[in-house]
C-alpha cells in the first residue's frame, strides 16, 4: 500500500466517524464540500481531526478546494511533504496556537 492509500485509509476512518458513514462506502471521488447533505460543522470537525491525526496545519482558505475526498487526501500528502522539507516554515505563534493542544 502506498502513501496516498495510507492517508486515504486514515482519512476515511475519520470521515466515517464524523459523518457517520460506513468506512467501506467511502470512495476517493466522494463529494465532501459541495453536498447540501453535509453539515459545515462536520467539515470543520473533520479538518480539526485531520490536523491532529497527521500533525499538519490546514489553512482555512484552502478548505473550499476540498470538493472530493481525494482533494483532501492530496492536500494532506502535500502538507506532510512540505512539513518534511522545512520544519521551521510555520512561525512560533502559529505552532503555539491554542488549537494545537
Amino acid at each position, binding site marked *: 500500500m*502506498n502513501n496516498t492509500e495510507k492517508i486515504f485509509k486514515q482519512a476515511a476512518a475519520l470521515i466515517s466517524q464524523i459523518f457517520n458513514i460506513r468506512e467501506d462506502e467511502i470512495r476517493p471521488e466522494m463529494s465532501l464540500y459541495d453536498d447540501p447533505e453535509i453539515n459545515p*460543522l462536520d467539515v470543520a470537525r473533520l479538518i480539526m481531526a485531520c490536523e491532529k491525526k497527521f500533525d499538519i496545519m490546514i489553512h482555512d*482558505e484552502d478548505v473550499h478546494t476540498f470538493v472530493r475526498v481525494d482533494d483532501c487526501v492530496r492536500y494532506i*500528502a502535500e502538507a506532510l511533504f512540505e512539513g*518534511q522539507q522545512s520544519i521551521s516554515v510555520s512561525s512560533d*505563534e502559529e505552532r503555539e496556537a491554542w488549537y494545537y493542544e
Partner: protein
Amino acid sequence: MKEYLQEFEQEKKRLDTTVTLVRLQMDAAQQALETKEAGILAAKEDMPDDTAHAVAGLYSAHNFEDLVELSQYAYLVSGQVAEHESEGQKIRQFRSMALTPYFSRIDFTFEDTQECESIYIGRFSLRDDASREIVVYDWRSPIASVFYRFGTGKAFYDAPGGTIAGEVSLKRQFEIHQGVLDYFFDADVQIVDEFLRKLLSQNAAPQMKTIVETIQKDQDIIIRDSEHDLVMVQGVAGSGKTSIGLHRAAYLMYQAMSGLASNQIVILSPNKLFERYISNVLPELGEKNVQTLVFEEVFQRLINRRVQSRTSLLEHLIASRDPSAKAVVKSVLEFKMSETFMEILHRFVYDIPRRWIPFADAEYAGRLVMPRRLIQAKVLQQEHSFPLAVRLKKAHMFICHHVRKRRPHRLETLRRYVIAGKRHPFDAKTFARMVSIRESTAMIRRVKAYTEIDVLALYVRLFQDDRAFYRLAKGLPLPPDMDRILAYTRETLGAVCGLCNLTDEPGPKAGIPYADAAALAYLELIISGRRDFADIRQVVVDEAQDYYPLHYAILRVLFPKACYTILGDIHQSMEKEADTALYTTIPRVLDKDNPVLMTLDKSFRSTREIIGFSAQFLGEGVRITSFSRSGEAPMVHKALDSDALHDQMAAEIRSCLDSQYRSVGVLCKTERDAVEIYQHLHHRIPMRLICTDVAEALEGVSVMPLSMAKGLEFDAVLVCHVDNIRYTSEDDRRLLYIACTRALHRLSLFYAGEESPLV
C-alpha cells in the same frame, strides 16, 4: 553480357553472405532478448510485493525509505525494459534487412591512402563483429552522401573530421526482392533515371513510402543540412517536399544519436487524414520517437475548449456563395493571424495588470490586510520576464501569508464570541473553526477574482471596448474594415460564450472560431508561461503556406529550443494569397538568425502531360519542370446535365479501375458537392466519402473536398464541376492547381453547363 553474368554471380554471393550475417545477428539478438525478458521477470519478482510501482506516493514523508528501497529495484527493471525495447527495435531492423539489406554500391578510392573500398548502402548499417568491418552503411552515414550527390569521377563528402575527397569508380544499383538479387545496373550519373522512372510509374500506395533509394542531389542537400537552425523549402507540387521533411527528420535523429541532444521530433500536419498517410515513413526508417500534431490539437490543449477545425473554416470560406460575408470572414482571419494583432496582444498582456484586473483591497476579519494599490504594485514590481500568471500567484501567496499570520488571533476572538453567545457551549472551538472557514473562503474568493486570470473572459472584453482596442492598436497599421472585424468578433464570441455558459458540452458544430482559438492559445502561452514541449529539438512543418504569422509565433513559444524544417508551396495556398514574402516572415517570427531557403522546381509525381496541363493555373514566371515520364493527356469532359455528368464520371472511374489503378480520387470544391457526388455514384461503384477529419487508408475510390486532398496523391484524379459558377476567382485558380497536381498518371475534369473560364 558475359561480364555482367560474372559480376552478377559475385554480387549474388556477396548478397548471400550479407543475408547470412543478418540472420546470424538477428538470432543472436533474439536470444539476447529472451534472456533479457527472463532477467526482467526475475528482477520484478525480487521486488517486494507490497511496494507500489506508481509515483503517487512520492511526497510521502513516512515512506521515504520505502521509496529509496523501491527505486533501487525499479531502476534495475526500467533500465532492462529500455534495453529490451531497443533490442526489439534492432530485431525489427534485422527483419527488414534480411529482405533488402542494401540498395546500392559505390567503389570509392580515398585520395590520401589510394585505397579502394566497395561501399554498400542500405536503410540501416550492419557490422561484422568478428572482422569489425562495416558490411552495409546506413544511408544517413556521411559517405553515403557520395552516392546521392555524385556520378562517377571525383567526389567528396563531409565527415565529422573534415572533408574527405576521393574518386568514384563504380556506381551500382540493385533490385533485391525477398533477399534475392533480381538484377543490377551500373551508371555514371547521379541516380539512374531508368530506375527512378520505373519506381515512379508504379501505382500510388495507400500510405507514403520511403525514398532512400532515389533521393536526388538537391533533395539530399536539404536532408543533410545541419548548419542552419531553420531550413525552408519552397517546392512545386510533387517535388517530394513532405518526403524530404521526413527523411531529414530521420537523418537528424541519426546524427543526434552520437551526441547528447535529446532527439524528440514533432511533425505538424494539416489534418488527421494526412497524418495517417505519412505515419509509416519514419517507423520504416527506424525512428519511433515522433509526435504528429495538428494545430487545432495544440489550441485545444492550451485553451481547454472545443475549437473550430481548419477544415470546417475552409469549407465555410470556399462554399460561401455570399461574397461580402466571405470577405468579412477572410479579413477577420487575416487580421487576427497577423503580426499586427500579435503586437496588440503583447500590448494587451502588458496592459492587463495595469487596467484590466479589478484589484481590490484584501480584507480579513474586518481589517485591511493589504490595500489594492499595494497588491497591484506587488504584481508590477516583479521581474517582467516572469509570466503574468506567475506574478499574480506570488501576490496571492503574499496575501495568504499575511492572512495566516492573523488567523490564530482571529480564531481566539471567534471562540470568545461563540462562548459569549452561549448557544454552542460544548462545541465552541468547532463552531469557531466553521465560521473561520466560511469567512476565509469568502475572503479568498474575492482575492482570486483578481489573482486568477480567465484568458477567454479577458479576450472577450478586449473586443467589447472599441476605445480600449484602438488605444492598444495605436500607431499600428490596421485594416480598413477594422470596425466590421470588431463587430463580427463581438457577435461570434458572444454566441460561443453564450453556449458555453448554458451547458458544458456545446453542440458538435460549436467551438471557438479558428482564428480566436489561435489568439487565445498564444495569450495563454505568454500569460501562463507554459512549457509543454520545451524539450522538443526538431520541428517539421508541412504545408507552410497555409499558416499565418501567429501560427509561427505559437511555434516559437512552444518549441523554444527546436530547429525547424518548414516545407511549403506558395502556389498551393487555399484561402489566401501567399507570396515569397512568407519566407522572410517565417524567420522573423520564429526569431531564427540562421535561416536558409531552398527551392525545388522539379515534379516527380505526375506525368509530363499532367504537369503541362496544371501549369496553366500558375501565374506568369513560375517554373515547374517535370521528370521525363509521359502518359495520357488530361481530358476535359462536358455533359449536358447533371445526370449525364454522373454517367460520364461513373464511366471514367470504371475505366480507371479497369486500367489497374489502385487509387482514384474524386475531388470536389466543397464538402456539399462531395456528398452529392457520393450519393449519386456510390450505388454504382464502391467508393468512400472522406469529409471530416477522418483518418482512413486511401485505397480504391475516394470522394473528398479539396481541402482534405492537400498533400495526398492518387493514381487517377477526377475533378468535378469545373464550371463557370464554382471556379471563377483567383482563389479558385489555385484550387484547380492543387486538384490537378494530385494525379500521378491520369487526370480528367468534368462539368455540366458552361466551362470555367479558368480552364
